[in-house]
């Protein structure tokens, strides 16, 4: 019963909208009061693929999102470990400060970041865009990774160390496999956030960096529901593709890693 209720509600509220949007992207504008009829139109998707740069924009968005994710992990895994497994003066303060970027309105941050990027010489460059995408993402990944280490507990790691394992070895064979659920969450969250950044990408990329939101955002103000639905769907599919890529890579890495069988679970 509970299962039935849960599934019908998730299908209705979560799957339903996506299906409706998909359906809308291939049918002409619906008029109120008219009975539903099935006329198909390819207009929505045609306008999506019309822009000659769409493929380029797609791959650039993906690349930026993946680099952002990578840097996020590079920042968040050690930080999560430090915040979870070690104790030092001012720890809670640092922890608090690391979340604060989330509380700053994007518009306020955008200008300051733009000036910073100009001074660093990476404004109007994809790498500058990567750097600013860190602002709305890093606090999340640190949160998630810290929570991951909290659950992992320091006991097992210390045991391994006492048995003489080298830190990197411990990391690869124990920490990383056990942290995989957290890493997966980070990848998904960060890719989604990075791919939907319009304001920051527009300001810092300054038109040199054409990502998908740059092309498709203006169309969201269209009165043409068909076109709008097509762009929305295309947009939502991207993070899924990115996550699949990461999943495949990590699977490949894991199967090629030694000591996999010794992993405790």
């Amino acid at each position, binding site marked *: 019963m509970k299962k039935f209720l849960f599934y019908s509600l998730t299908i209705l509220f979560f799957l339903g909208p996506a299906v409706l949007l998909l359906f809308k992207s291939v049918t*002409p*504008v619906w*008029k*109120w*009061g008219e009975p539903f009829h099935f006329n198909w139109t390819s*207009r929505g998707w045609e*306008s999506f693929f*019309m*822009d*000659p740069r769409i493929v380029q924009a797609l791959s650039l968005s993906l690349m930026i999102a993946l680099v952002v994710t990578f*840097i996020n992990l*590079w920042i968040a895994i050690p930080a999560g470990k430090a915040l979870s497994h070690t104790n030092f003066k001012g720890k809670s303060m640092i922890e608090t400060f690391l979340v604060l970027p989330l509380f700053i309105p994007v518009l306020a941050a955008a*200008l300051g970041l*733009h*000036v910073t990027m*100009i*001074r*660093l*010489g*990476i*404004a*109007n*460059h994809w*790498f500058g865009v990567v750097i600013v995408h860190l602002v709305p993402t890093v606090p999340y990944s640190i949160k998630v990774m810290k929570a991951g280490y909290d659950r992992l507990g320091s006991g097992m790691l210390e045991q391994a160390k006492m048995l003489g394992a080298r830190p990197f070895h411990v990391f690869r064979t124990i920490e990383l496999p056990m942290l995989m659920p957290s890493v997966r969450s980070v990848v998904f969250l960060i890719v989604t956030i990075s791919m939907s950044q319009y*304001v920051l990408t*527009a*300001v810092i990329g*300054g*038109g*040199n960096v*054409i990502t998908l939101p*740059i*092309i498709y955002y*203006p*169309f969201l*103000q*269209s*009165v*043409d*529901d068909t*076109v709008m639905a097509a762009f929305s769907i295309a947009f939502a599919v991207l993070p899924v593709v990115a996550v699949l890529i990461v999943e495949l890579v990590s699977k490949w890495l894991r199967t090629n890693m030694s000591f996999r069988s010794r992993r405790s679970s």
Partner: protein
Amino acid sequence: MISVLVVIIAGCSNDESLSISDEEIQNQSFEEIAESAQGETVRMYMWGGDEGINQYIDEWVKPKLQETYDVTLERIPLDTNEIIQKLETEKRAGQEDGTIDIIWMNGENFKRAKEGELLFGPFVDQIPNVEDYYDTESLDFQYDFGKATEGFEAPFGKVQFVFHYDSSKIEEPPATLDELMEWIKQNPGKFTYPDPRDFTGNTFLRHVLYGKASSVEKILEEPFSEELAAEESANVWTYLNDIAPDLWREGQAYPSTLSELDRLYSQGEVWMTMGYNEARGEVLVEDGIFPDTTESFILEDTGSIGNTHFLSIPYNSPNKEAALVAIQLMLSPEAQLIKLKPTYWGENTPIDIDKLDQTKRQDFDSIDRGDTVLEQEHLMETFIPEIDATYVPWLKEKWIDEVASEQ
């Protein structure tokens, strides 16, 4: 990671091109400019939310520019206010080597750009097509929303404000502001206008101002002042408050953008919509968004505000020569003719038809702009220019105090 950063920074500072100074460009003839522009790339920044406009640039202007002048055009979709913000920040940070070569804009944005000294110029008299085909004396080009253009903007297009209505529901559209009020009272809930923070909504307010001011000449000629504006607009607020109870949602909510109003119209929730560009209904009818029975009208007593939109070059454009060449092409009669056809854009041209030779003039005259577009003559008769750009934010603020917060 740090080393990656360093490599990239180094890479960035390397490709500064050795460009000649602005003054030198301004002293060159167009032939010299065209020669040095060869093989260059020009990046045109423009709002990208209209497929027809995008296609016009990508499918017609771009190949033509390549073919005629060997210049590559890149269209960058970005909101105009975003572009201005970007330039302002670059100016403050002292970045002399920018990325934008051409901006498409007018009105408030131009005012902000010109006052912030974000533009290169004057350059317009260096464009041969302007001299040849445009009426340079015309007030339309000398002023952009009351702001003197002084050669910092080249006229690219011209549009007029019209109302659209569904002729299957309305037999005879209102012809004056008072008739409009009467119609609204008889058909409660079937009319509204976008929030004046939206450009179109603000233009609707300016029409009411033209209709209700003691004299249109006065507000057009005298410079903006709080006193004058307050005095002349008194009846505007009375009018808007009078119609408010019979508007859509009883005036509690206004569509936040024009596309919201268009959506209401396309669903038949309201029976009229409005907008700049007298031909914008064409493609919407064709795509089945607006009803087939859509037609347009103009209020006789207010007239129809028309404005020109322009092309400018930012102060830190890395390729000013190529930008000049591209502007020359986009202002040519050929380019303007294609732009006027409903195939891509359907928008009117600022060209002075009298300056064209016989065949070209015929080409322009013979274009069928579509059924939803009013006769050119009618449009010309009712045309009135824009007022000082300062009115735009002033009306917006005042409207909130006088109308929105009263409901």
